[in-house]
């Protein structure tokens, strides 16, 4: 990898200031950024490590649901969210492997918005609010296409607020090599409706399957999605699965998620 300068701020304010420099980039768990730097696909001149910022870590229950600090590793969410939001905890516990979960963070995952990542499905499926150093962004407005989000240059995700649904489940069908989601479906039933978020499948990244939401809103049973037709148009296709195959998985996993919720 190319050489760089590493700074380790102790607060969000310091981090934001450090990110103001030309060529600066946030480093959280590094589980995405460091591999791409090793491959020389990214070459930041300055890395701003978020790992020492205490205010960005931890899981706590508040009046707006479950708040997860932006620099909280997946392993911590898997452990500490279990009592409050089991579907979210389970999702976090299925990301990568134990070593990746010990380092990788929710903020890094959401900011990266990999089309095969798991957390975007949880955020969108829960109708979460992404809190940054400067504003709050609704999940519906946050994800803007492959590896693209509403974040501005130098903007940091400081926490994520998850409303807690009555029932929820995440179903992940792993891509055989990377073990990221070939398709992942997050289903959440709230008092005022159902949200279904799909990752891994969409050409534009994570999306909501609104037909399924409507059908499940009326009848929250696996059978409810049976009759829905999901077009392969707009689905990703690669050697691990053609669009039609992914469309099938979306439906199968949605049914299974509803059954498991």
């Amino acid at each position, binding site marked *: *990898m*190319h*050489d*760089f*300068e*590493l700074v*380790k701020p102790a607060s969000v304010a310091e981090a934001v200031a450090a990110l103001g420099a030309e060529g600066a980039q946030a*480093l959280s768990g*590094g*589980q995405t950024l*460091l*591999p791409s730097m*090793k*491959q020389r696909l990214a070459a930041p001149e300055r*890395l701003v*490590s978020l*790992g020492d910022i205490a205010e960005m870590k931890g899981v706590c229950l508040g009046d707006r649901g479950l708040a997860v600090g932006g620099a909280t590793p997946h*392993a911590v969410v898997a452990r500490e969210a279990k009592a409050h939001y089991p579907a979210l905890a389970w999702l976090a516990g299925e990301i*990568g*492997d*134990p*070593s*990746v979960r*010990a*380092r990788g963070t929710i903020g890094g995952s959401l900011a990266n918005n990999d089309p095969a990542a798991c957390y975007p499905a949880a955020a969108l499926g829960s109708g979460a609010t992404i809190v940054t150093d400067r504003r709050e962004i609704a999940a519906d407005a946050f994800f803007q296409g492959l590896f693209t989000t509403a974040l501005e240059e130098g903007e940091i995700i400081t926490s994520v607020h998850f409303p807690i649904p009555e029932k929820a489940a995440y179903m992940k069908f792993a891509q055989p090599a*990377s*073990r990221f989601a070939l398709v992942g479906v997050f289903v959440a039933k709230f008092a005022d409706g159902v949200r279904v978020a799909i990752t891994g499948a969409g050409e534009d990244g994570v999306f909501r399957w609104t037909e399924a939401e409507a059908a499940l809103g009326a009848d929250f049973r696996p059978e409810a999605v049976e009759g829905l037709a999901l077009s392969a148009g707009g689905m990703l296709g690669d050697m691990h699965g053609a669009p039609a195959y992914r469309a099938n998985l979306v439906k199968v996993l949605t049914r299974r998620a509803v059954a498991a919720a």
Partner: protein
Amino acid sequence: MKVTMTVNGKAMSAETEGRTLLSSFLREGLGLTGTHVGCDTTQCGACTVHVDGQPVKSCTVLAQDVAGRSVTTIEGMANKDGSLSVIQQAFQDHHGLQCGFCTPGMVMISAALLSEKPNPTEEEVRHYLKGNICRCTGYHNIVKAVMAASGADSQKLAAE
């Protein structure tokens, strides 16, 4: 720059470039070549070490980002008297290694599992180890070794 951390219980430091990964710091900086590098996409786990007791892939951690922390490598796993620890001994007893290249990572991840969950089921072992690739053993004997190290009755564990 000079980076210092506690490695296998001793304070150690080395001069490195800022971009040095923990794996290179250990291997080149400190001469601890037991930590191996088997890939460049953070997937094989040959480089697994513990940082403050947690398993991490040292090829995907900056050395200076864990300066001051406590790191355990395969070189620090044997008992104080130099004899093999329970996990290491189980790997030998059950032929859980062949070429030995994945082995340091396998031992480190298995140790992390057993400290997190002292009595895992076989399925839990396989699940926990999925970020560590072994090309030689077919995992059968690795799983058996981990189960045996957890105190499970190895006779009942796996078909031969």
